[in-house]
């Protein structure tokens, strides 16, 4: 069980200083699905990016904590003092290592890097970083003198890493099969020339392979046709049901919530959570829009 906890989070644009988050409080635990809704510009995507450590934003106040269980990661016993992390103290890759995944609204395209090479490198890097973070004090002493050829252009790491090429190929084939993805995906360049739908499916595939404790999915449903929406939704449900991940699903629309049923729905307005509720809240938003939330929020204020 892991728990992501946002406490009174304030953030602004690093260059320019425009304030975007104005005290966000939110908690997501493993096995739960939370929907974060709200009109454009309310701070949803910024929340996601701040959780993952995007350099474009500066946190001015508050905390982003991850609480882990002793047996959070397979084959590893986490000592008491290393079960809580403030993500704001960590680099983006370290945040991945403590179990946080960000699914991008607009994934970048990187030519020349095959999916299989990229994902295996990422998985091994995550596992290695995890060892460094959670091992007691010894990690830094063991700094290698020269690790030699880390990457070969053909097959990724010559250094096998924790997950070997063949093991990884099997894992990737299995996950792609679950998501009904074409096997040729593995050899394509990362997102290069992917359709909008393929990119979103790819984000879910990456989450499935990297097995996060908490996955923040930023408008993973935008620009999808109904078939692809169902595929992606199936993948998200599997993340929770089979891997026990906690999901923070950022979305504009009720549509995806027909397939990925949230336990909790939060509405964000002007950089903070204005109201929270169950799945019925999303249905009301679908019917009535956001105005009533705004009115209620200002009444109570």
């Amino acid at each position: 069980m892991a728990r992501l906890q946002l406490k009174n989070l304030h953030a602004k644009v690093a260059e320019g200083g425009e304030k975007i988050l104005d005290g966000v409080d939110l908690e997501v635990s493993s096995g739960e699905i939370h929907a974060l809704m709200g009109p454009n510009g309310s701070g949803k995507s910024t929340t996601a990016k701040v959780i993952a450590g995007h350099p474009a934003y500066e946190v001015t106040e508050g905390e982003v904590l991850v609480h882990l269980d002793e047996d959070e990661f397979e084959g590893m016993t986490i000592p008491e003092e290393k079960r809580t992390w403030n993500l704001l103290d960590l680099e983006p890759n370290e945040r991945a290592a403590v179990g946080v995944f960000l699914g991008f609204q607009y994934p970048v395209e990187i030519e020349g890097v095959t999916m299989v090479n990229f994902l295996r490198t990422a998985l091994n890097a995550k596992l290695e970083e995890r060892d460094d973070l959670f091992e007691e004090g010894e990690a830094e002493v063991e700094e290698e003198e020269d690790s030699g050829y880390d990457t070969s252009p053909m097959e990724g790491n010559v250094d096998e890493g924790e997950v070997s090429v063949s093991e990884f190929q099997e894992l990737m084939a299995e996950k792609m099969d679950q998501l009904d993805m074409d096997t040729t995906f593995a050899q394509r360049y990362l997102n290069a020339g992917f359709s909008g739908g393929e990119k979103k499916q790819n984000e879910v595939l990456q989450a499935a392979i990297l097995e996060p404790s908490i996955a923040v999915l930023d408008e993973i449903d935008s620009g999808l046709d109904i078939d692809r929406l169902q595929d992606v939704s199936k993948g998200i449900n599997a993340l929770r049901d089979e891997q026990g991940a906690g999901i923070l699903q950022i979305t504009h629309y009720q549509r995806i919530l027909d397939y990925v049923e949230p336990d909790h729905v939060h509405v964000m307005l002007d950089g903070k959570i204005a109201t929270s509720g169950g799945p019925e809240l999303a249905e009301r938003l679908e019917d009535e829009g956001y105005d009533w939330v705004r009115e209620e929020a200002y009444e109570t204020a």
Partner: protein
Amino acid sequence: MSSDQDHLRETDSEKRFEFKKDEASAFRTEKGALDEETIRVISEDKDEPEWMLERRLRALKQFHAMPMPTDWPGQPDLSEVDIAEIVPYIRPDVDVRGGVDDWSELPDDIKDTFDQLGIPEAEKNALSGVGAQYESEVVYQNMQERWEEKGVIFCNMDEAVQEYPELVKEHFMTENVPPSDNKFAALHGAIWSGGSFVYVPEGVTVDMPVQAYFRMNSEGMGQFEHTLIIAEEGSEVHYIEGCSAPQYASFNLHSGGVEVFVGEDAHVQYSTVQNWSKNTYNLNTKRAICEANGTMEWVSGSMGSKATMLYPSTILKGRGATDNHITIAFAGEGQNIDTGAKVYHNAPRTKSTIESKSISKDGGRTNYRGLVHISDGAEHSSTSVECDALMFDNESTSDTMPYMEIEESKVDVAHEATVGKIGDEDVFYLQSRGLDDDDAKQMIVAGFIEPITEELPIEYAVELNRLIELEMEGSLG
């Protein structure tokens, strides 16, 4: 994973570039004595025929008569290049002139140097042949007998002058790269030494790469190897050259010459990965002449050097001839890599593609300088030029200077250039998946140069990637 990759992995690349031997040469010319007397001494030491000496002397005259190139827009600063400071010729202490054909006969210090570079390992692993040049002479070469039986010649250039005078006399710096081409071609013509000679008879396909490795080991020397490749009608060969030089305080000059003759329906690929020390001026002339339906392919990675000026060039002489260029340049602090390609479409239905990629970092400067000339009458020819520049920071620069001279209207011309900074968004994306900042950048660069690495045999691809990793870590001084 093959054993040669293991070997490469185990070799500490940084040490490899610092590694150098005390000079133990049998003969060297006096520094700065670039006059007729010096040329005569070199030629005599090589026991050359009269006609070669005459060519050298003619080239020397041309060299002295020509001005230094100083007026090209944005060209590298060559004011430090003082020919008088260069030791033009050093012959290492090897008993057998023209090299030995058994590795074990080499002096230990030379063997050690090549061991450090991993060359014998690569050679052992099923490559058809390696010619290794140490200082000015080729010291080692070997080629599988099965090619020799088919009449393929692969030897060092000095030996070719002795053994195959007719072929050399006809092709050496005559119609392809005459000394009058440019000042450094003239210099090269005067004091050239060593290099490779490759001859592939009609209809023969050499299906393994022929390889040579050049190394400058002594301080303040110049290296002027000449490579002459003749591929007769319908033949096919892939020649690969690697170059490196260790670090020294004073400057080195590398001024090589490459001439390739691609016969009708023949196919030649010339690949090179060069990594010079940061005080080397790398000023070369490379050209191919391509007959009807022949194909010439240049694949080159230019790393290191203080300044490089190199524009591999192809003359598409026969109908239906094809030329492909793939180049990559990497410039770090204090470096200016000025490189590109030249193609002359002199016949109908000729085709060329140029793909140029450059990376600059820490104030480094890369420049694509290209020329595509389509002559009147070269109808239905096509050319496509693509230049991509990747920059790490705001201090680095990259310029693209594509010249197009189109004299024929029935042609298809395309040019595309992109310039980009390594994107924060790209790096963040990879970081969010678990890669640290350095690994993320390396992965982006590895992807960027992938079109080059996929054209190279694995050892060279690994070497190129590793060199770029080292450059990016800033561990090469």
